[in-house]
């Protein structure tokens, strides 16, 4: 459960307000999409509710814990176990094979061997078993993004935050990614927050949040 209260985000000097007093609640097991035009602050909001960024004022509580009051170590530990990120770019480490990239989160806490089986399962589910030992430079864009998704899913996180995960993909690969997210939400009960500017993909979520000029709105415009 993520509760955001009066989230304000300001950038620059003099401060320019990107987000205005946003109240937001995401329940466990929900699939929420956040959409809006570019510059509406949707990505900023996502990063604030996902521990990557801090609000200028206001509070974010995840599972009852106030993000502002957690130490750096605690936040990283929490991310490691509970949060999976998918970005517009795959951000795979170019020196590591697909399998090694997927196993990065468990490697951080010394549980790599325990998660190997799960990694192969994910590769199988995502239809990319054949590229397990390949480097990111040797595979296609759609495959890269699926490896990144597998990396986000490996720890069976409670939350997945996706920032334009389809932004760099053609429509068929985009659909594949969206279906994977939806299935994960339905089968595992993973809470998913998705940022997209594509109305079609936004509509696939169980709840849609629209942002217009840093405020929650009833409609896309």
């Amino acid at each position, binding site marked *: 459960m993520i509760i955001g209260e009066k989230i304000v985000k300001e950038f620059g000097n003099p401060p320019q307000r990107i987000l205005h007093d946003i109240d937001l609640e995401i329940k466990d097991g929900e699939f929420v999409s956040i959409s809006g035009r570019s510059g509406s602050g949707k990505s900023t909001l996502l990063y604030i509710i996902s521990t*990557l960024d801090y609000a200028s004022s206001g509070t974010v509580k995840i599972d009852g814990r106030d993000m502002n009051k957690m130490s750096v170590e605690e936040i990283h530990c929490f991310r*490691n176990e509970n949060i999976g990120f998918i*970005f517009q770019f795959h951000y795979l480490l170019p*020196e*590591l094979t697909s399998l090694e990239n997927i196993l990065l989160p468990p490697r951080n806490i010394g549980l790599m061997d325990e998660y190997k089986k799960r990694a192969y399962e994910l590769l199988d589910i995502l239809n990319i078993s054949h590229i397990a030992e390949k480097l990111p430079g040797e595979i296609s864009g759609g495959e890269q993004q699926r490896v990144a998704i597998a990396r986000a899913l490996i720890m069976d996180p409670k939350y997945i935050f996706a920032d334009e995960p389809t932004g760099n993909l053609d429509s068929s690969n985009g659909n594949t990614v969206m279906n994977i997210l939806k299935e994960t939400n339905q089968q595992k009960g993973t809470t998913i927050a998705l940022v997209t500017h594509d109305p079609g993909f936004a509509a696939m979520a169980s709840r849609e949040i629209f942002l217009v000029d840093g405020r929650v709105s009833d409609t896309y415009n």
Partner: protein
Amino acid sequence: MLFLSFKQLFSKKKQTFLILFGISLGTMLFITISGIQLGLREYITKSLLNNTAHILISGRENTIERDQVYNWFFPHKNIAWITSPFGKRRESKLENYAGWAERLSSDPEVYDFSPRLSIQTIIRKGEITLSIALTGTLANRQVRVTSIEEYMSSGKFISLMSGGNKIVLGRKAAEDLGVRVGQYIDVLNSNGEIIPFKITGLVSFGDDRMDGAIAFAHLADVQKLNHTPGRVSQIAVALFDLDSAERVAKQWSLFSKDKVEDWKSANPMFMEMIKMQDIVRYFITFSILVVAAFGVYNVLSIMINQKRKEIAILRSIGYAPNRILELIMYQGLFLGGSGGTLGLFLGFIICRLVGSINLGFEIGGSNHLLVSYDPTIYMIAFGSAMFASIIASFLPAISASKMTPIDIIRGS
């Protein structure tokens, strides 16, 4: 993190090996320069110690002092000299050899000591005469106090142990006289008496001027020759620890009128040379390591800039800042450690090569350069390679760990 560090390092093989090479070059140079310098120094020290020993105790010079003469002969009078008193009262000698012998035998820091009486004499074979410094010693102690036995070119120094007018000549002196081991030569004392000595050995220190003007005999024989029974002009002392000589000499000089001189103060030129050498050696090493450190710093800084995105994603996966610090530091440590190790091997090999070059002239009993393999050289070399790379990787590592994922993701 080790795994990732290596993966990242080996993805840039050329850069990595260049830096490795730079560090190992610095380490290697230090080892080679130090090996040669310290080897040469050991050789010089050894030959110096042959003449002076760790500590040399000798009689004070007894010059006539004007004040003493006034006070003794003309107390409270004003005297004008036509020729003022000047000169020595007597030959310098140890006041109390027995006392010294007792003290030295009971001192736990003393390895052994050897009393000496050195006199100037003339040796003669047929028509040819030669002026030499003849040193009377106790051979069994002399060989313990100095390494003179190693410098014997024929015969044994220990043959002087039994006395009975035997002499060990400098090789050049023997050449000049045209004599060999087993032959007899005449030794003239200051009274003009001629006493025959049998040559039982030749010694060569590698310096012709010295080898042409020295000879050794039994202490009692020299005392008899000089008509000074029981006289000792010097005591050569060997300590267990060469480097404590300065301190011990200072201590002893407090309770004796005699002159107590350690080998360092007896050879101020040599000590200055050593200091200069050390400064040059450390300066060269320092400059090379600074260059290597800049290399490490550069490689890591560039790498961090290229890897901003990867660092961001690692952070978002849950790798805390300290883990990122580790990631970079491991790479620096690896560069320093393996570059240093490689340098140790290269340095050792070069030292062996240099040591095997035939110089074509004799130095210290062989015709090869003496190279030191003192383990402390290797420890200092490796230590400074590590130190330089730790310092050089720490700054980039800190800046990498301070990057926040959001700035990088937003920026791209």
